[in-house]
């Protein structure tokens, strides 16, 4: 395979939801492999969360404390600063001092996100970051889904960075001490470090990225992201059929029914 890509996924709490999203991420990686993109992920969490995730998601999750590998890489880091955990993951993905096969591209994302692999088939070149403006949010009760347009320079928080761009910041592009706004911090710092950086948007459809909300657990609640909403529908699972695998949809439907 000619190109490699790693997702960077910090996890804290919401273990059952995170496990479903990581299983879906594994399916996304499988689809990318069919298209000559070798994809993996690194999970960044404290010891307790990694252990709990391993119980839920099994062999997907490595355990650093015992050296037991999983399908995805894992980093044990305290939960103090979200941005530090993004930096850890990006560094493990891309820094040849730690990874003998550093990823060509890195995609920071949330542990409550689904990504349609099709938006990752085109990858950025030179001084370019790909971002995405169209996405969907699912309400905390699982009974409503938006069609949203995040009209920021970088789009929503999920972006594709070539390794060379994060190398410019020692492979740790986010401010280390941020608890929120980490995606913005990464883009801001990369923009400062890389002259003539371009941000291009690669949108395919409204369901290309899905963010699953949980009551009381999100920095930005469903109501909080309503400024981006263009339309809402009442059955998220029916809306996502045909975009994401039936198995993932069934798992998530069961999660929201509990």
């Amino acid at each position, binding site marked *: 395979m000619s190109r490699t890509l790693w997702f960077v996924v910090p996890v804290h709490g919401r273990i059952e939801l995170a496990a479903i999203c990581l299983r879906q991420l594994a399916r996304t990686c499988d689809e990318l492999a069919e298209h000559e993109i070798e994809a993996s992920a690194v999970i960044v969490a404290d010891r307790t969360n990694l252990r709990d995730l391993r119980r839920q998601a099994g062999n997907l999750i*490595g355990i650093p404390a015992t050296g037991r590998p*999983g399908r995805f*890489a894992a980093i*044990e880091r305290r939960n103090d600063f979200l941005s530090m955990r993004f930096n850890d993951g990006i560094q493990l993905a891309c820094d040849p001092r730690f990874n003998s096969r550093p990823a060509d591209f890195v995609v920071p994302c949330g542990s409550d996100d689904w990504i349609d692999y099709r938006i990752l088939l085109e990858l950025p070149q030179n001084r370019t970051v790909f971002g995405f403006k169209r996405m969907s949010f699912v309400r905390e009760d699982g009974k409503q889904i938006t069609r949203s347009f995040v009209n920021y320079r970088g789009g929503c928080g999920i972006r594709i960075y070539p390794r060379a761009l994060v190398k410019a910041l020692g492979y740790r592009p986010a401010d280390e*001490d941020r608890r929120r706004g980490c995606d913005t911090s990464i883009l801001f710092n990369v923009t400062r470090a890389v002259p003539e950086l371009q941000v291009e948007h690669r949108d395919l459809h409204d369901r290309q990225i899905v963010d699953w909300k949980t009551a009381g657990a999100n920095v930005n609640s469903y109501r909080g992201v309503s400024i981006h909403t263009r339309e809402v529908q009442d059955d998220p699972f029916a809306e996502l059929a045909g975009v994401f695998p039936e198995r993932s949809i069934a798992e998530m439907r069961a999660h929201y029914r509990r």
Partner: protein
Amino acid sequence: MIATPAYGRYRVTSDRAFRDHDPGSEFVARLDTAHERRAVRRRAIELLERIDFGLESALYVMPKGWEDSAETLGRSDEDRRLSSLERRVEA
């Protein structure tokens, strides 16, 4: 590319929060040089030490089989260190 500031370990010395850090708390950051100088001068923070900070301070494990396949793919050390994409960006 523009050089990035060095890491520092800081303590908040004023009675007001600094970048969301509470008074008296310590934090690690890579502050812009001028920003750091101003904050230290007005006694908002104290620089405790310059540090190397990174993944060295965390435990990690790679994906199963990821590094084994480096040999299979036949990537040279040089390829691993500097992809053609990086060369183009650095040019």
